[in-house]
């Protein structure tokens, strides 16, 4: 069955909001309800279905404009949540690294890389900040204890992960919306 203009619009909007980690089922239901009401009003004013849908979408604003407004309104909250998760994950990794029975550096490095990648993939816009928030705690602990700065190299893992996740998100966005 062929999608109508409203369904196409909602699908695009949903994917764009999802990519930015700000999709919410209630928000989308509310927008769908709004558009359906606008179409009904248009039909009531004598427009045909296609005209009513076009006018409803025109008045609602393009996907780009609406997504950008959602992003501006919510970015601080979402960005702060992701940053807080990064800090907690980093502190946890430092705690694990400092425990006497832990000696698997490979798993820890892989964990730092994966967590950083996931957080930027989910929508954090500053890969360097995520990398720092996740990876700084292990070197800081060692610098504090032994003044050993060599472990700053550990930051390479979250940096690679964070920029990898960020690039993947850009790639997904470009694939879904080439324009």
């Amino acid at each position: 069955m062929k999608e109508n203009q409203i369904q196409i619009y909602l699908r695009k909007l949903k994917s764009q909001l999802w990519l930015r980690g700000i999709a919410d089922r209630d928000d989308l239901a509310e927008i769908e309800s709004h558009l359906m009401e606008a179409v009904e009003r248009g039909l009531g004013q004598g427009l045909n279905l296609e005209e009513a849908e076009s006018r409803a979408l025109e008045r609602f604003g393009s996907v780009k404009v609406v997504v950008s407004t959602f992003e501006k309104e919510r970015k601080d909250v979402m960005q702060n949540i992701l940053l807080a998760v990064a800090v907690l994950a980093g502190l946890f990794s430092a705690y694990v690294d400092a425990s006497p029975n832990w000696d698997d550096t490979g798993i820890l490095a892989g964990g730092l890389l994966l967590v950083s990648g996931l957080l930027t993939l989910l929508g954090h816009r500053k890969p360097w900040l995520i990398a720092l928030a996740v990876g700084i705690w292990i070197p800081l602990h060692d610098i504090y204890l032994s003044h050993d700065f060599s472990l700053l190299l550990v930051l390479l893992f979250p940096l690679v992960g964070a920029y990898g996740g960020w690039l993947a998100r850009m790639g997904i966005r470009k694939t879904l919306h080439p324009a």
Partner: protein
Amino acid sequence: MIGEALKGHLDLLLLAILADEPAHGYAVIESLRMKSQGTFDLPEGTIYPALHRLESQGLLHSSWSEDSARRKRIYRLTPKGQQTLAKRQEEWKNFSNAINATVGI
């Protein structure tokens, strides 16, 4: 130009409209357009994020209504929203008086 100027005052306008009575987004937008006689004609989709932000700040409360054929999310002012509205109205009154006095209206 009007759109840009409006952005800084959108919260006040939305709170003032919802002070009259609880309403869903579509009705809020209609009311904004009608009361301003078409001057405040923003893309409708840009109003929802502002309503959601006001709700997250505790100034509005929303609930879903099943009364009509379609589910609607109804927004209403909270007590904190009423206090904020009164404060913003006072600020706006002082501000607009000062502007009017300066430009000679």
